[in-house]
């Protein structure tokens, strides 16, 4: 059979989202790939320019629909710097805890989708079942399961409900046991190793050249984690290890994500201990009046910015479940951000698709792309 281009997407089981991977194949061999993005482009950066600072948070949830909390965190960190606001310490711990729960939720979702890609059906449902527990926790203190709108410029919207900490501890204990089960289902299977070992290899230099971050970079032997290297919120007060592996292939990415989830549980347990003994405010008290509306706009005049409010540039970088997410917010002294820019880790990871897909087989594309963990919401924004 001669060479031909096939479209894997925009509606294709491999894509896990709305994007198109054009693949040039010769039989089963992949000769070239060309990812096409933009099917989900909503212009979040543009819409943000017409919104008040706290209203952008709504868009952040839609940015990555499996890791909304992390993206809210990213934005509020940048906006706080741009607006010269300091969040209280308790809010920072709640943010860290939410981040880590979100990381577990996102990784479990990734696990479910990834094993489905290589034909394992049972762990898919196990993953979805356990993700539900995390979503239940989110629901109990944010009121939503996917789009939380919980973080605020200057803190978080509301404190944790009574009894939450006990529930969260129970979920942690349950999850730690389940991770063992996940590993047994995958790593004990010879076919899993046949399908995943030595696939989609990216060495450290190639990763750095192409701007690849997150579990993909750490699986290539680079111990880089912004939570350690450039700690934000409360991460400098918490103990954890940076998960990493050496091989740089699909199995290594699997191992890194699994280890990250264990570390997340460790972080969550520490922050729960802290939160239990340190009650306090969760929203900054000295907020400008136009920012101080935690739930809803207080009327048109409530938004008016003081004329002499200082300008500023806010920059934040966080370790999102998929990798390093960056944002800057330009405050030109109006009630809307002048410019918001986000850097999605998946954007960079997918842009290097040619590096880790060419030379493998058509049947290898789902496991490799699965190990990249594509979230189209944040690629297209």
């Amino acid at each position, binding site marked *: 059979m001669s060479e031909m281009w096939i479209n894997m997407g925009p509606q294709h*089981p491999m894509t896990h989202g709305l994007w198109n991977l054009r693949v040039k194949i010769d039989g089963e061999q992949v000769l070239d790939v060309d990812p096409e993005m933009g099917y989900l482009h909503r212009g979040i950066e543009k819409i943000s320019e017409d919104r008040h600072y706290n209203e952008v948070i709504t868009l952040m949830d839609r940015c990555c629909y499996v890791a909304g909390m992390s993206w809210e965190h990213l934005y509020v960190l940048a906006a706080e710097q741009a607006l010269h606001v300091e969040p209280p310490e308790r809010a920072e711990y709640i943010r860290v805890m939410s981040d880590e729960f979100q990381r577990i939720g996102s990784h479990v979702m990734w696990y479910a989708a990834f094993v489905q890609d290589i*034909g394992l*059906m049972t762990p898919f449902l196990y993953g979805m079942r356990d993700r539900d527990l995390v979503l239940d926790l989110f629901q109990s203190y944010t009121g939503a399961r996917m789009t939380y709108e919980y973080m605020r410029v200057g803190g978080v919207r509301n404190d944790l409900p009574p009894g939450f900490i006990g529930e969260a501890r129970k979920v942690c204990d349950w999850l730690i046991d389940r991770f063992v089960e996940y590993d047994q289902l995958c790593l004990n299977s010879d076919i899993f190793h046949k399908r995943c070992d030595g696939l989609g290899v990216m060495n450290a230099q190639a990763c750095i050249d192409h701007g690849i971050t997150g579990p993909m970079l750490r699986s290539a032997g680079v111990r880089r984690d912004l939570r350690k290297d450039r700690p934000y919120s409360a991460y400098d007060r918490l103990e954890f290890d940076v998960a990493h592996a050496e091989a740089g292939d699909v199995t290594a990415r699997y191992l890194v994500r699994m280890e990250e989830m264990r570390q997340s549980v460790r972080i969550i347990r520490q922050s729960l201990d802290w939160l239990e003994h340190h009650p306090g405010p969760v929203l900054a008290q000295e907020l400008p009046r136009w920012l101080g509306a935690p739930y809803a706009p207080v009327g048109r005049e409530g938004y008016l910015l003081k004329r002499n409010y200082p300008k500023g540039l806010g920059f934040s970088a966080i370790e999102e479940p998929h990798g390093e997410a960056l944002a800057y917010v330009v405050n030109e002294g109006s009630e809307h951000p002048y410019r918001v820019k986000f850097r999605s880790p998946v954007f960079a990871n997918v842009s290097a698709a040619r590096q880790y897909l060419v030379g493998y087989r058509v049947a290898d594309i789902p496991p490799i792309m699965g190990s990249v963990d594509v979230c189209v919401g944040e690629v297209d924004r």
Partner: protein
Amino acid sequence: MSASLLSVSTALSSILLHGVGSILPAPLQGWLTNGNAIDALGILIFGVILLAASMLNTILLIWWERKLLGRFMDRRGAMHVGYAGLLQNFADGFKLFRKDTVRPRDADSMGFFVGPTAYLVTSLVIFAILPISTGWNSGNLPLSLLLAITIFSFAPLFIFISAWSSNNKYSLIGGMRSAAQMIAYEVPILLAIVAVVIVSGTFSLDTIVTEQQNYWYWGPLFLAMVVFVAGMLAEMERIPFDLPEAEAELVEGWNTEYGGMMFAYFMLTDYVRVLLGCFLIVLLFLGGWTMPSWVPSAWTSFPLAGIFWFMLKAYAVFTVFVWIRASLPRVRTDQLLRVGWNRMIPLSLVSIVLAAGLVLAKCVPVFGCLPNLGG
């Protein structure tokens, strides 16, 4: 067990035709009650009963898989239609039946419709050949095993016809994979069967089962059984060998373009073939409808006991297949083909040698001496 299904249906047809004939005028009565007409209607009734029974079994099989998979996955499976979801598959079938069958504009109309239909029909025909109990089928065909395997291996042809005529790249890749896989696994299956044939000395399935009265072949021919079961898994295109319809990369492979009843044909045929595969495994290696002598005779002598034990064994084999499906990922094409050509064929050759040795030795260490060997 003297009354066979065929004789029962011939008797039924005789009663029917004589009954109808008695109220008709003379010439018509004569035509209706002659031997040929009775035989013809008898065969028709036989076919209808067989078809209904196998279809019901296939649908029950799907139900059983859904329930089992549900339990493996920590959920309940089909629950709402009928008792414990027993009627769910009928509901699904009716839904597919009501749907329009859309043919892509560029698809080849002949192949597009003939492929699935022939795939279903050729698979169903095998039910008439496999004996489920003594006297179940049309008779003791001397070459029934060969005939069944021959018809069983028509499938890649029809899959490839449907895939090619769909005019879709995914379908084409899926069809090619399917054909390559089925041909690669046809050989070890046949070689494994040769081992059975050497030991039993016959191609007739009825005789093979009778030979297993004292010891089932799964023990002495264990290697052949492993090869046969693995090959059958590939022939049935189930996980871990379901890559022709690998949903992750090929969007259901060769049945991407099919919808409605045509898709139902494929779905049904897949399970028909699974059921056939289970039947063959039971017939060749698990003693068919016979039970070992230590089983109390009360358990083996009630009416239709043969069918009961046969189906029990078949469903037990299927349960193992579902278990495999719930716990294994899918392999890759090249790995599958490599295993097929490099491992399965040598293994099946070894199993033939072992079978020949068995015949020469006339005795199996654990299972006792073979009464009918070396004749």
